[in-house]
């Protein structure tokens, strides 16, 4: 609630609470029953938040702090293990490579998705004939179920019968084992993820561009600014809030990308494209004998990473608002 509405309802409440029920929520002396009413209105969302966010989160933290075996998972009585699961995960030889893959995957995906999305958004701002149709076409990756796009990519990148290798072969380049060589698998899943992420960046940045007043551009044109100057001095600074939220949402989404990698490479070969998300899944569900504790610990590390990014975003935004 903004300060203005608060004062207005407060004044109205003081004057007319005893008479017929005024429109709007009055904050008056009949506070207690009103508050109960308020809580009742809040209840659905509160219950929803607790049941679907707070409790699962709590359970996940609890899972990661206990030493669960399949036996204790079913029979109960898993001993409290403190940070043992985190220690197991952090000292696992797979941890650092996996973390590096996660960071490289996220950074590369974001950089390309954002810059290509931005370029396309600027391009479509020109409103040329058929631009609407073309823009709709570029949204296709977003509309496809991930299982479809990931399977399609894994067919395209198939070593022996993939279209990409056939095309490369036509210009005399040897077979590249996109998905089956440790050197290429991470690159391949990044390429697929960039393709899937471009539409999101395009849409958000395009709508951000609509909000920039045309007059600013007209003024700059009169001052003789070049296209390049217009971009760096007008578009980019004015688009900063939109860019920031695009990048933050992209970051949170990319950190936890699982389906594309799992479908295309299963994180392999030899964990060369494994990220924290696929590792967590493998620990928890990818084996006949689930290791719930370490799986939950890896999941929590991901949550913490996303949380830090969120806090950094809020901080940056607060600074901007103060300015």
């Amino acid at each position: 609630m903004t300060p203005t509405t608060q004062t207005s309802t407060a004044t109205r409440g003081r004057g007319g609470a005893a008479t017929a029920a005024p429109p709007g929520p009055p904050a008056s002396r009949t506070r207690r029953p009103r508050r109960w009413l308020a809580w009742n209105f809040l209840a659905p969302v509160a219950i929803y938040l607790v049941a679907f966010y707070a409790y699962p989160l709590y359970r996940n933290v609890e899972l990661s702090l206990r030493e669960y075996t399949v036996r204790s998972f079913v029979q109960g009585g898993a001993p409290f293990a403190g940070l043992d699961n985190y220690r197991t995960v952090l000292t696992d030889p797979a941890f650092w490579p996996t973390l590096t893959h996660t960071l490289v995957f996220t950074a590369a995906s974001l950089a390309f998705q954002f810059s290509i999305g931005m370029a396309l958004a600027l391009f479509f701002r020109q409103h040329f004939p058929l631009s609407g149709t073309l823009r709709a076409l570029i949204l296709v990756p977003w509309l496809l179920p991930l299982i479809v796009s990931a399977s399609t990519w894994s067919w395209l990148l198939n070593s022996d019968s993939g279209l990409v290798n056939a095309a490369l072969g036509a210009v005399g380049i040897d077979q590249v084992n996109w998905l089956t060589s440790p050197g290429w698998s991470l690159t391949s899943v990044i390429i697929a993820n960039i393709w899937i992420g471009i539409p999101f960046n395009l849409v958000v940045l395009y709508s951000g561009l609509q909000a920039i007043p045309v007059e600013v551009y007209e003024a700059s044109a009169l001052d003789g600014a070049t296209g390049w100057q217009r971009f760096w001095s007008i578009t980019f600074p004015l688009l900063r809030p939109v860019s920031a939220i695009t990048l933050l949402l992209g970051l949170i989404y990319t950190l936890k990308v699982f389906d594309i990698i799992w479908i295309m490479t299963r994180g392999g070969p030899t964990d060369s494209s494994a990220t924290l998300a696929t590792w967590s899944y493998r620990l928890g569900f990818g084996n006949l004998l689930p290791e719930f504790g370490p799986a939950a610990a890896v999941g929590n590390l991901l949550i913490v990473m996303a949380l830090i990014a969120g806090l950094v975003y809020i901080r940056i935004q607060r600074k901007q608002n103060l300015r």
Partner: protein
Amino acid sequence: MTGPSRRRRLAAVAVIALSAVAGAACSSSADGPSDGGAYLVWDPYPQFADDSEWVALLKKCGTSAGVTVERTGYDTTDLTNKALLAAQQGNSPDVLIVDNPVISTLAEAGALTTTEENKLDVSSMEANLLGAGQRDGKTYGVPIGANTLALYYNRDLLTRAGVDPTSITDWTSLTAALTKVKAAGKKGITFSAIGTEEGSFQFLPWFWGSGAQLTGLDSPQAVSALTLWTDWLKQGHAPNSVINNTQTTSWQEFATGDFAFAENGTWQLANAEKLGFPYGTIAIPASAGGPAPAPTGGEFVSIPVQNKTARYATSQKLVACLTNADNLLTTDTTLSYVAPVAAVQERQAAADPKLKVWVDAVRAAKGRTGDNLGTKYPKISEPLWSAVQAALSGAKTPQEALTAAQATATAR
């Protein structure tokens, strides 16, 4: 983890919404057991609708036991998690049909009754199939049918390359056949070496066929088996894509008609009839000759632990009905499985001579969790499939890969 449900695995992956809160799913509760009259049956055959023979059989068995049967079909991979969660919540189904290696996991969790408790008769079952459901001298379920792996071959292609499939009895003659096929301009063999349980499942016939044991992943025999596969890739007998192949994609490669051989399972028999070329099957040869022991696939019928132990008697009747000889024949024909009972196997082979190879393969097969490995198997299998991937992708030599695998397996 094998069976006709493979092709739905990708769909399952999509459905399992893994987010950063992976473990959180544990809090959701499954459908509770309903009123006393209805008995719950969970199976991994979602391909069978309510009007299928399988469901009709379930209903019939329910009627003869004097109860109604409520059946739910789950995806194989999904069912393991579902069963564990249900056990945790204390609302397990009365009868649970699961993939055989899962039995030892569920038994470890204390979620299944033993045959001593539930009075099931397992005496007619073949010992090598029953093995997967046994640990520490106790039996936790009855096999409902078995499948295993063999080599499918493209008859036309072998004729053109001048290879006689009956001459293939060991690794040397197999590799010689692959060389001839390559010389004739075709591709040799396709299999699945993906980095999941499926990859281990496909590698095991070669691993066991070399004389290696799962307790010693880095033995010289094991290295020879992995070297066989690695050399096939290096020499171009097998495509590089096997590293990422599931058994379904491997089958699709074979179905193109470009490949002479494909390692695949009983469950492809129905698809094999739809191939555009005549096919045949041979047992996977062992290193020194003769059929190699392949791992057994297929499901077990088990009776999960209930609070109301009085329910076991009726559940036992249901399971006994499902696994009597006549009903096994119906079920295993529908699933294109081999029956777990010798007498029924004879009847199957008599009805369809093509099944003879498969009956022999199943008789030579071994349970993955057998040899009292139980829940140690998953801890061996994961390093094993990782080693296969490392060697095939060239990241490590077969020796290095398996030495590392053995170190991981013992460290756990």
